[in-house]
């Protein structure tokens, strides 16, 4: 349902240009629209860094640019899924602290990558050197005995 189909189409074209690699619609200042889109990517990077500090810290000062490069044509579904999708896509190269952060989140919530994450009652996830355990909302990381 739309209140104004023409305006709806124009707004969608603009949002797609700013978040999904679409062309800037005619009549707009393309440089200004792209600058605004970069500003939004920096804001998203900051929100992910606050929600998943270990993930962002893995990239040090390169975090905002790294995230912006990955997210430039991926519209957001909120900072939690931004963080989660990014972490899963980069799992192979993440250091231990970020992998534990990912494992703890995956122990708390089930996420299929398509729809909103759902809380789990209990779960066990591998982390480097041990396992992350969640039972009724309480999580802890246990080291593997060797």
């Amino acid at each position, binding site marked *: 349902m739309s209140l104004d189909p023409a*305006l*709806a189409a124009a707004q969608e074209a603009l949002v797609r240009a700013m978040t999904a690699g679409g062309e800037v619609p005619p009549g707009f200042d393309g440089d200004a629209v792209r*600058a605004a889109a970069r*500003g939004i990517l920096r804001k998203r990077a900051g929100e992910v860094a606050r929600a998943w500090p270990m993930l962002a810290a893995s990239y040090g000062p390169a975090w905002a640019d790294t995230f912006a490069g990955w997210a430039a044509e991926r519209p957001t579904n909120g900072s939690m899924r931004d963080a989660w999708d990014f972490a899963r896509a980069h799992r192979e190269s993440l250091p231990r602290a970020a992998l534990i952060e990912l494992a703890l989140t995956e122990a708390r919530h089930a996420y299929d990558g398509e729809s909103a994450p759902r809380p789990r009652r209990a779960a066990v996830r591998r982390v480097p050197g041990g396992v992350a355990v969640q039972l009724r909302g309480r999580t802890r990381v246990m080291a593997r005995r060797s």
Partner: protein
Amino acid sequence: MIGQLGVGIGWRPEISGFVKELPGLRFTEVVAESVHEGHPPADLLALRDRGVRIVPHGVKLSLGGAEPVAPERVEHLARCAELLDAPLVSEHVAFVRAGGVEAGHLLPVPRTRAALDVLTANIRATQAGLPVPLAVEPIAALFDWPDAEYEEGDFLTELVERTGAFLLLDIANVYANARNRGEDPAALLDRLPLERVAYCHIAGGDEQGGRYHDTHTAPVPPEVLALAKELCARRRPPGLLLERDGRYPPAAELRAELDAIAVAAGLEPVT
């Protein structure tokens, strides 16, 4: 009707302790989408119980979107208002999604009759679901839509006249837009219905690539404080609220910012 609010600061989890300790605070704001109805932050409820006025501030309603506002989003704002004993609720003159795609931020609407019609319908639908008045905030935008049919001041004046909504005037947005368009920020103040301003936002930003971005992650620049002073000389709003959304400075610096706002506005310090 809204009453005097004074100098405030936006409540955020990261600065909850700081906000709680402000002895003279009478007014704060919380991002409505961050409030879990079943588990509102205890510090926020303590502020409410102390008599601090709390304004739920929505960021995802998309009043300017060409789709009708989502009833569940309006209901959440209403429940936040009841839970927090809010004097009013605020949202933006903006859209945040279209065609099922989230923009990730507030985007400007075209200054056209068609956009006014959509905003009017959505604001009225929101007002009908709220137990308290609604104030709408013009945003900072790095670009404008082509083929505008209104000047910004006339557009906002007509919107307020049509809907009876209050204005949440963001002084930093007025500054940012004027600076990026090469205009005089004070000129917009002359064209707005200042008697409809419920409260003001004030914040800092930074320049990137020759454009001023209203990031809320930097100190309030002197030019924005000067504009606040100019606004208050015309008509002092009931409240001025500092927004800070990251790169939080030490408490002493935040206190100094709040004091500088109080001085610029001619209001009592809250620190």
